[in-house]
């Protein structure tokens, strides 16, 4: 059904008039111009498209936009404030936790959500939370190190 959906996107009140069954991924990318959230499979199986809805990581490729109505949505673009990287992003840079970078927005956002819920997540908890996010380049070891360092420091 075509209707106007309102939600908070990266801290800003946002409205879009779209078919409310459309998936959040395509609304973010195609209607709102936020291309940082990536398409990897469209089936909820890779995590490239991960965004945060009310503190929970969701796969935006299988989340209808109507599910975001009235909620707080955070995408990769919302993690760095006025050009300043978040501590988690800084840690990804420091640990070289990426290669091609295509999975990276999904990884960072998924880990951000984890740390929102469990600021001091253990390595085991991190592995469990990240296990459905795929990285073909094999940056996993570095991604774990990057998240763990922030979890140990407690900052995000």
């Amino acid at each position: 059904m075509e209707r106007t959906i309102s939600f908070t996107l990266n801290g800003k009140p946002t409205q879009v008039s779209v078919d409310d069954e459309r998936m959040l991924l395509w609304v973010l990318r195609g209607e709102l111009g936020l291309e940082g959230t990536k398409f990897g499979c469209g089936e909820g199986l890779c995590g490239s498209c991960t965004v945060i809805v009310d503190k929970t990581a969701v796969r935006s490729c299988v989340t209808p936009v109507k599910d975001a109505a009235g909620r707080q949505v955070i995408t990769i673009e919302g993690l760095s404030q006025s050009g300043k990287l978040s501590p988690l992003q800084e840690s990804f840079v420091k640990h070289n936790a990426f290669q091609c970078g295509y999975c990276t927005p999904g990884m960072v956002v998924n880990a951000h959500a984890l740390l929102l819920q469990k600021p001091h997540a253990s390595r085991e908890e991190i592995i469990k939370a990240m296990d459905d996010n795929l990285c073909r380049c094999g940056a996993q070891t570095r991604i774990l190190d990057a998240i763990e360092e922030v979890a140990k420091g407690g900052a995000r």
Partner: protein
Amino acid sequence: MSAHDPKIAADPSRRDFLATAGAGLFVFVSAKSLRAQQEPGQLPGRAAGYATDLNAYLKVGADGRVAGFAGKVELGQGATTSLAQLIAEELDVALDSVDMTLGDTDLCPWDIGTFGSLNIWQFGPVLRKAAAEARAALLQMAAERLQSPVERLRVKDGVVTDSADAARRVTYAQLVEGRRIERRLEGVAIKYPKDFSVMGQSPRRKDAVDKVSGKARYAGDITLPGMLRARILRPPARGAKLRSVDTSAAEKMPGVRVVHEGDFVAVLHEQRDLADRALEAIKSQFDPAPAGPDDVTIFDHIQKNGPKPQTVAQSGNLAEGEKLAAKLLENTYLNSYVAHAPMETHSATVSIENGKITAWVGTQAPFMVKPALAQALGVPQASVRVIAGFVGGGFGGKTSAQQATEAARLAKITGRPVQVVWSRAEEFFFDSYRPAAVVKIRSGLTAAGRIAFWEFNVVGAGDRNADHFYDIPHNLTTSAGGWQGGNPPGMHPFDVGAWRAPSVNTNTFARESHIDALAAQAGLDPVQFRLNHLKDKRMIGVLQAATEKFGWKPAKGPSGRGFGVSCGMYSGTYAALCAEVAVNKTTGHVQVKRVVIAQDQGVTVNPEGSRLQMEGCVTMGLGQALTEELRFANGAVRNGDFGEYQLPRFSWVPKIETVLIDNAELAPQGCGEPPMINVGAAIANAIFDAARVRMLQLPMTPARILAALKKA
């Protein structure tokens, strides 16, 4: 890198770009010095007074910044950073002052493509010479300006100082200000490793901030005004012919445009997901594909349909060797088709404006895509510009770019910019897989535990590093068909191609598994057995380095410890790998607990970058070793999604330790692929050591392990 910015689409071609690039020192590199990289047939920059053999270049600008241009592509291997390091080193400027532009066919010199770990190995020396040439020219200019003899001049961070009189100093920027100086590459010397200050370091990657903040733009992220996103109707199986199609429902959908030319049916919409819906609304019927092999019968199929075997290496006489042998050992090793499965599917965005075609393409080889697009549209190559900005992984699977041709064709038909981003199913379906392969090895041991003869026949994988490096008196190595093409039609039911360390990952799996089996037959520790047969110092060096770091204590296999070892070489680099695994005998599940990898790759340009590549390769290698195989029948892919086709996950990743052997005597060699080659055999050997079963087929899935345990 500005090359990712859509707004420069209308920029002039490379030639014009050079003409308008302002003041500065320009170093051109002749195509000849690009040797293996040489462009066949035609060279850019024929007009406007630029000689035809001037191909590559580097610019020292009046603003003090240095621009380096390379036709290479940033696939995640860190080329943007490591190539900049080479320039900064030879030019004696700060790394931060170097801006690299990669993979843009209008702005960059021709390049064969980014694969085979060639970046540093082959292109590196050319770029270093260009930078050294620039430095020599600038020193000459400085000597004139400062009235100081050139020998007295020192350079740091782009500032030239007279060592006898520190007051006499001038910056590179001041030297070139207001002037345009052109130089060709002369026989200048490059630095010795002992003098390196930037090479050999691990600086922050230049692409880091863009990548962690979601700013990095891939080909499917380019949005142009009026752009349509396309989906294309695909057959359910290779070779299935379209019988009938009804697009009427799709045509009625608002904003949808349908293109139907023969078998080519596409739907376009400004929004990707609405194009998806339109595709779903198409009713189509395909004739069944011709019957073909499946993932079980494929091994017989390729042996029957392969070309005649070619001799790769031969020495001694097999019949003599057999006489020396007290025990024989013959095994057949199998490898399945494996997908590249980059996280970014094949993507392209194409605009046609006033006859100029600009294509943003996720490709490893923009200069191969350029003529393909020109041909597809029937236009001269000069009117095609291909930009390979950030590419979301390639691994050998993004050399040809069918998606770019599709987008270009649709852009021409619709008169609008068109984007094609393959679905995951399309990515699996159209991939050029690592070929399925069969390796038969026949061998014998003398009573003294030495290998008497070795006969190695590979079908399907290719001949790269099929030959061994052990001291064996009687040998024959043959190869039939391979990833490079030239296979008889029908041998492979799909496209095959390079997959990280092509041929070599298959050949090394077979060879090193078999060496291990021979060691067990001889009742010897597998490391000692290898050392007994090794003469090559570099191979001995990496093997010892890996086993030392791993803490390998000699024991004959199977020892029950779950330790495995493998060694090999690829593109000039030597590598050895030790693995420790645990095998769950009830479920057949293998957990790799620890991996140590040692590598001798000559001089290391960026140690951290090399380690990343090594860790990445090992992690990626776990998939082809344990789970990844294409399941198919009659040309249809049965497991073309991430639910069925399992890629390595966080929970699989072992502790990975890397040892880089410092080899200052050898120029930098490739490092992006060699770590892959040993993963299969080291894990297979570790499984044997843990569970007493010799796994002869990759991937070593739980089902195959259970079956082997049952048989044992």
